[in-house]
């Protein structure tokens, strides 16, 4: 399993064209959102924050992690397409370690992504109100959530087996993200976005990531975020293993 994780990590580092967009696209959106909407913090109902950048950091992190999940899906689908995956299945290793190895690598990459955005935020004047402990909590929630998103990508790939199909599903990751409180406070969302956002685990993950950044740590928000991230990860890991088993049963 660790060898598989190491291989996934090596491949990611050798293919900057997959890795870089995961950081660059959210950074650009973060810049544009912050520059364009910085006055919205004055709107009635907006929580008291140090700046709009601080508020948006969690959105950029969530977005980057979702993109990471898509790229896990594409990587797995490519391995299925070029036959490497079959070779793994044929080798004498526990099948589940194919899933867990990939997710372990995703966890590590997610840590790097979260760290990148925290540092980026600090450079451009954001503050982490929760201090060092808060930053560690952000890293933890982010890495777990990233692993869960990787599980989504992997389940998709095991079902679709086709990289371009996985890529085609990519816009829907944005739909789900938009229909959450990742970008804007829940109270200010309009119908029907607010209704969907209330049931969207991404809302809780983003708010869990955001709380330690914009305010002193609030156990409620953090625990909700952690629970949502763990829930997504557990569900998607199970689904991946289930789909992998399904794949093995086929002639």
């Amino acid at each position, binding site marked *: 399993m660790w060898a598989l994780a190491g291989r996934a990590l090596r491949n990611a580092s050798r293919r900057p*064209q997959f890795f*870089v*967009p995961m950081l*660059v*696209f959210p950074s*650009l*959106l973060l*810049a*544009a*959102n*912050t*520059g*364009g*909407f*910085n*006055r*919205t913090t*004055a*709107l009635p*109902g907006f929580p008291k924050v140090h700046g709009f950048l601080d508020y948006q950091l969690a959105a950029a992190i969530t977005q980057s992690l979702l993109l990471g999940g898509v790229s896990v899906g594409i990587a797995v689908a490519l391995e299925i397409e070029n036959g490497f995956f079959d070779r793994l299945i044929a080798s004498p290793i526990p099948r589940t370690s194919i899933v867990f190895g990939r997710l372990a690598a995703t966890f590590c990459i997610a840590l790097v992504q979260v760290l990148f955005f925290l540092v980026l935020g600090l450079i451009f004047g954001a503050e982490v109100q929760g201090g060092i402990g808060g930053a560690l909590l952000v890293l933890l929630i982010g890495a777990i959530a990233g692993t869960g998103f990787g599980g989504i990508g992997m389940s998709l790939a095991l079902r679709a087996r086709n990289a371009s199909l996985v890529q*085609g599903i990519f*816009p*829907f990751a*944005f*739909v789900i*993200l*938009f*229909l959450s409180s990742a*970008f*804007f406070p829940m109270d*200010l*969302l*309009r119908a*029907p*976005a607010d209704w969907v956002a209330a049931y969207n685990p991404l809302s809780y993950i983003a708010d869990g990531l955001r709380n330690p950044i914009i305010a002193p740590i609030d156990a409620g928000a953090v625990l909700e975020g952690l629970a949502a991230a763990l829930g997504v990860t557990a569900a998607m890991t199970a689904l991946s293993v289930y789909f992998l088993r399904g794949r093995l049963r086929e002639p």
Partner: protein
Amino acid sequence: MTASIRILSAFQRRALNEILRVPGGAIPGVLAPAIFLIGLSGVFGAAGDLKGYQGDFTAYILPFGMLQGATFTGAATGVNLARDIEQGWFDRLLLAPQRRSLLLLGLVSSASLRATLPATFLLLVGFALGVGWPGIGALAIAYVLIMGFAGVIACYASLVALRFRTQQAAPLMQIGGFIAILFTTAYAPLALQSSWLADIARINPVNKILEGVRQGFVPGTVTWDTTWQALVALAVLGLVLGGLAVRSMRRTGR
């Protein structure tokens, strides 16, 4: 002359094939900007309550969405070109005894034509979300600018495709237009922006194009002043990027 038109129409037809003959081929290019529009208006709609938007927030960002659709289409043209280079189809074009600029115009004009698809779809979504009718004149100007902008982005994306000759350069093709339209008054008027963003938007020629597209929606009056600035910005971008792309076509094989 008529031979040139026949060649251009052949390019258009082939580009349409990619939409019409691939099941679901039109969906990603149309859906992504629509998702962006619905998402932005749903999520940031409350921002419209701030003074300075001179109208409904959805109407304000609809033109941005339409231009975004044009950038997706333009970038897709570059990705398709890279695919054609990889698969050898591009050699067939290069072997034609025709001016290289005509071949490029064929590629680019097909992007312009295709860009009307997401733009129109987005317009309908906008109307469904309550955006008011901007008037025929304003729409005509908007479509000219959107189609032209798709061509400009197609030139840029083709330039990248000719340089790297692989579809793996797709993110690079997409990000150029993405940056160009994002650092404008896309989400908020200059007065509401952070000063650094406003500074960039002021010198960004794409902002002129965006305002040209937007004028019929927000503030709702079409002025010659806004229109000619948009057209000049488009022409300058087209000449520069088109010139570079033609040069790159001519240099292919050196």
